């Protein structure tokens, strides 16, 4: 299995990469970790004439902490996010999510930016990025803009990113001390992708849920915020009954996917079960 022929560029600056993307338009594909794109090219599902390898642009990699938030370069690998002491300390749900992806070799190579742009419905990052209300910074021929996570994922494998744009950074506010998060996942047994993954950020004051944010992937063809759960639980006591009643709404209004692995009803049920478990774990 060998990809079709293509021309290869490895720019070392963002401007150079954007120029190449503008010149080659629809014929070009950006290459980051390659762990979604190369398999797709080997299967000849994608046959780009031009590959723009952005991994030699140093500025796009690594995590920093300016004024109360984490700024994550799009080229930061899953492993770097899993193992970063800064990330583990400030936003542990990011490390947890990274650790749930694939295997060591995949995490060494795959990037958070690549995963978000690829927008595989069974990918792990989208739920967590949605629950964290992250901002995605992108650069294009007309300069930079910020896309909210909740506006980013649009359809199956489709995001709000324009073809001539590159995702550069993911901005995540560091949650306050009374906010805790967890990402729980039902692994699809053979592939390890998420049959369902639920990310929850729970803000509490004592026994009361001040606010809860719930991101879900694997269920629908695009990751989503389970707003029904969020509004049901906000302001309520974190009792087992209230949590269960809220979690029941985890797939409300959602068109669950059907494939050889699971029926829509099973997927919707998993969303409820994992929402319940995640909230209960944070509430205990």
């Amino acid at each position: 299995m060998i990809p079709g022929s293509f021309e290869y560029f490895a720019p070392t600056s963002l401007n150079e990469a954007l120029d190449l993307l503008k010149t080659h338009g629809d014929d070009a594909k950006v290459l980051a970790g390659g762990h979604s794109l190369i398999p797709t090219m080997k299967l000849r599902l994608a046959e780009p004439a031009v590959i723009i390898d952005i991994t030699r642009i140093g500025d796009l990699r690594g995590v920093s902490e300016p004024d109360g938030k984490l700024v994550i370069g799009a080229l930061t690998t899953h492993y770097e996010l899993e193992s970063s002491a800064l990330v583990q300390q400030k936003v542990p749900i990011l490390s947890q999510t990274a650790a749930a992806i694939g295997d060591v070799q995949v995490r060494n190579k795959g990037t958070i930016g690549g995963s978000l742009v690829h927008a595989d419905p069974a990918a792990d990052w989208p739920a967590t990025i949605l629950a964290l209300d992250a901002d995605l910074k992108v650069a294009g021929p007309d300069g930079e803009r910020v896309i909210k996570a909740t506006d980013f994922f649009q359809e199956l494998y489709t995001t709000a990113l324009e073809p001539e744009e590159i995702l550069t950074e993911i901005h995540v506010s560091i949650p306050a001390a009374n906010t805790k998060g967890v990402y729980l996942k039902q692994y699809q047994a053979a592939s390890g992708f998420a049959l369902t993954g639920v990310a929850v950020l729970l803000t509490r004051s004592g026994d009361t849920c001040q606010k809860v944010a719930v991101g879900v992937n694997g269920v629908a063809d695009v990751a989503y915020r389970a707003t029904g759960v969020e509004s049901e639980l906000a302001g309520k006591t974190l009792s087992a009954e209230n949590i269960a009643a809220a979690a029941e709404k985890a797939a409300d209004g959602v068109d669950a996917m059907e494939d050889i692995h699971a029926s829509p009803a099973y997927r919707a049920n998993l969303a409820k079960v994992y929402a319940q478990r995640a909230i209960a774990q944070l509430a205990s």
Partner: protein
Amino acid sequence: MANQVIHTAINGQEHTHEVEPRMLLVHYIRDVVGLTGTHVGCETSLCGACTIMVDGQAVKSCTMLAVQADGAEIMTIEGLAQNGELHPIQEGFWECHGLQCGFCTPGMIIAAHQLLQRNPNPSEDEIRHGLDGNLCRCTGYQHIVDAVQYAAEKMQGSRERKEV
């Protein structure tokens, strides 16, 4: 399409070749450089037989282009033994019967090498988790876990090789 010249250091030796951009790194290593210890199993990023170290990171070389490795330091299974002495992980596989047909072994050993670099004293669970990306159709994994435990002990100086 235009070929590209790439420079790599593989097991300490420098190589320069002109390659087609679509050439996979595993094919470069096996067919161009001639190091056939790295195996091709599934060719779909699933089995781990093609695992090598690129700049200190274990990667599946069937899911990387040779051009991506331009400038990289690479270690393959052939680079592990030093001066004719087996590396402790290789010795572990030998002593603990960590292989049967041996097809998965080069990738397993490189993945184990990455694991022990990051976690010199792993639990059994951590070993199984660390080798998650590598499939073995023969051993049932138990002896592979034993082999990695053997290597961890040996590398920490708490085990001598048994003479057999």
